């Protein structure tokens, strides 16, 4: 048994070693990408962009590992800590338990996790004010709609997704008080994140009822929603990363969670000594949340829409508009 363990350990070292180029003995930050890998054109790639920016600016190298299956998460995090990496950054809520165990086993190492809260004295948890970003895309949706009816398709019915929904509804009503919002959840089990067929059907049912812009916060299910929007000649709004490139002309905009900013800040603050453990909430004010405007959707956003959304953004930052956070009381005031 012991021998087996040694072999397992050795192979893990080997795996980790192949993933890094430099083998400096001094403290080096480390990042553990999650399933999907660093070029997934989504969440992980955002983190990759952030840490690359850090590397280019400071010249400091970092260790990295791409998790290929769920059992590697904990192993990878521990290995990074064991090799003297600091801080160790975990990507995505799925790594929460790995980071928690790692943080307990290596109390002198600093850890960070994006998109989840881990309550340990040496962990920095970075979460986002999704409701603020959803508010902004809600404003855009209401202004782009010709019918005054817009839709929302959520993934699994959990408080986090209700937070998107609630912020979005507020944004829509802010821009057009008489607007109707159709909101649907795909399901109540994790398979709701990967059901593009159902996503497309939910979108079609909302289009049939008159909606002409749909915001999907539904992971892979959203792909079906965007496709349905394209097939029916309507608009869709992407989420998390910039998804405008998926269907130029159909994607009105995307609500951005700036994981690149989060990753950059963590590494940067750790290197200059301003790093703090505990919960960091990134919203519009901190530049952690935004909406996407690029060459793929520039023609869809009129100057009036841009002005309105910029104003809403400024008002939220200034505290003139308070966007309700569903997760604060599990309610969405009408």
């Amino acid at each position: 048994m012991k021998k087996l363990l040694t072999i397992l350990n050795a192979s893990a070292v080997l795996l980790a070693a192949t993933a890094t180029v430099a083998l400096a003995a001094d403290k080096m930050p480390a990042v553990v990408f999650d399933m999907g890998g660093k070029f997934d054109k989504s969440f992980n790639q955002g983190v990759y962009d952030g840490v690359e920016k850090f590397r280019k600016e400071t010249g400091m190298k970092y260790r990295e590992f791409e998790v290929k299956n769920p059992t590697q998460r904990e192993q990878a995090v521990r290995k990074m800590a064991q090799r003297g990496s600091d801080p160790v950054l975990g990507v995505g809520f799925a790594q929460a338990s790995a980071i928690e165990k790692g943080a307990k086993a290596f109390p002198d190492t600093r850890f960070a996790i994006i998109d989840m809260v881990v309550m340990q004295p040496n962990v920095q948890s970075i979460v986002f004010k999704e409701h603020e970003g959803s508010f902004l895309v809600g404003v855009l949706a209401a202004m782009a709609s010709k019918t005054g009816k817009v839709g929302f398709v959520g993934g699994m019915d959990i408080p986090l997704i209700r937070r998107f929904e609630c912020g979005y509804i507020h944004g829509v009503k802010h821009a057009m008080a008489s607007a109707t919002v159709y909101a649907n959840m795909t399901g109540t089990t994790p398979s709701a994140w990967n059901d593009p067929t159902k996503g497309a059907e939910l979108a079609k049912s909302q289009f049939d009822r008159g909606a002409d812009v749909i915001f999907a916060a539904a992971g892979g299910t959203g792909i079906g929603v965007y496709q349905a929007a394209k097939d029916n000649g309507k608009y869709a709004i992407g989420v998390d990363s910039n998804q405008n490139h998926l269907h130029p002309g159909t994607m009105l905009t995307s609500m951005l969670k700036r994981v690149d900013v989060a990753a950059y800040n963590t590494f940067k603050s750790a290197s200059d000594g301003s790093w703090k453990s505990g919960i960091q909430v990134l919203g519009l004010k901190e530049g952690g949340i935004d909406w996407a405007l690029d060459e793929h959707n520039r023609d869809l956003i009129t100057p009036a829409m841009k002005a309105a959304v910029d104003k809403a953004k400024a008002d939220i930052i200034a505290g003139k508009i308070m966007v309700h956070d569903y997760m604060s009381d599990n309610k969405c005031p009408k």
Partner: protein
Amino acid sequence: MGEDFLLIILTFDATIRVSVPLILAALAGLIVERSGVIDIGLEGKMLASAFAAAATAYTTNSAWLGLGAGVVASVLLALLHGFACITHRGNQIVSGVAINILVSGLTVLLGVSWFSLGGQTPPLTGDARFNSLTFPGAEAVRDVPVLGPIYSELLSGHNILVYLAFLTVPMVWWLIYRTRFGLRLRATGENPAAVDTAGISVIRMRYLALILCGILCGIAGSYFSTGHGAGFLREMTAGKGFIALAAMIFGKWRPVPVLFACLLFGFLDAIAIRLQGVEIPIIGEMPVQFIQALPYILTVVLLAGFIGRAIAPKASGIPYVKEH
């Protein structure tokens, strides 16, 4: 009235779209079970062909080549199932489950290493997908009362795989009840020893049934990624293979009742999608959870109360041994 009528038509329209993979997979299951092989692996075969179709269609920019690749992938898995449980008389359930698990992991693994998109394939556009066919005159008759919407919404505007799926029903019926092959197939599932005595190879019959099953599952899987959707996503078949099995039992292993069972499941799914968040008189807004449980509740109720005993082909699930 006009508004409500259109809504009903659109719900039926959604029913058709959702039912297609169910119909194809249930008929696939029907054919193999009629030959005496249980196939739990419908789900896995569809998932594999969805991936193969999307990957090929993306690379070659041809939906037809994608369909071909999907069918090949699915037939290969069917033959693997046959190799395990016909040639080697392995447990058919275990083999089917193993295929499901294998495919669930393999598609993501290949997807990650080929496309680096977290197990997805890139979205398909243009010719890489089966686009909707619009029937002649569909736009012109749209405003004709009653018949207009039925023609332009319900009948026209689907992709070719949808029509193919509905065409498969009479074809399978004819194959099973009106051909020599069908007679032998049914006999193989009921009494393989008698078939063997008549000088027909049970093993060959069962392999042929599995190949047919693979072809149908391949079309169903391709529909997911190149027909209804546009690209592959991990676990995108979302349990449809198991629903198809239920529909097959519902329809008592007969093509036409199976078609109606699939349409019923599809209809419940479509209703569930459309009822969500809609205010219903007296009851008010239905909770999401209840709406989503509705198809399953109805399945249990119908199965317990209305369908009666479903009797499987007698030799289903039993490997054939030539000499005792």
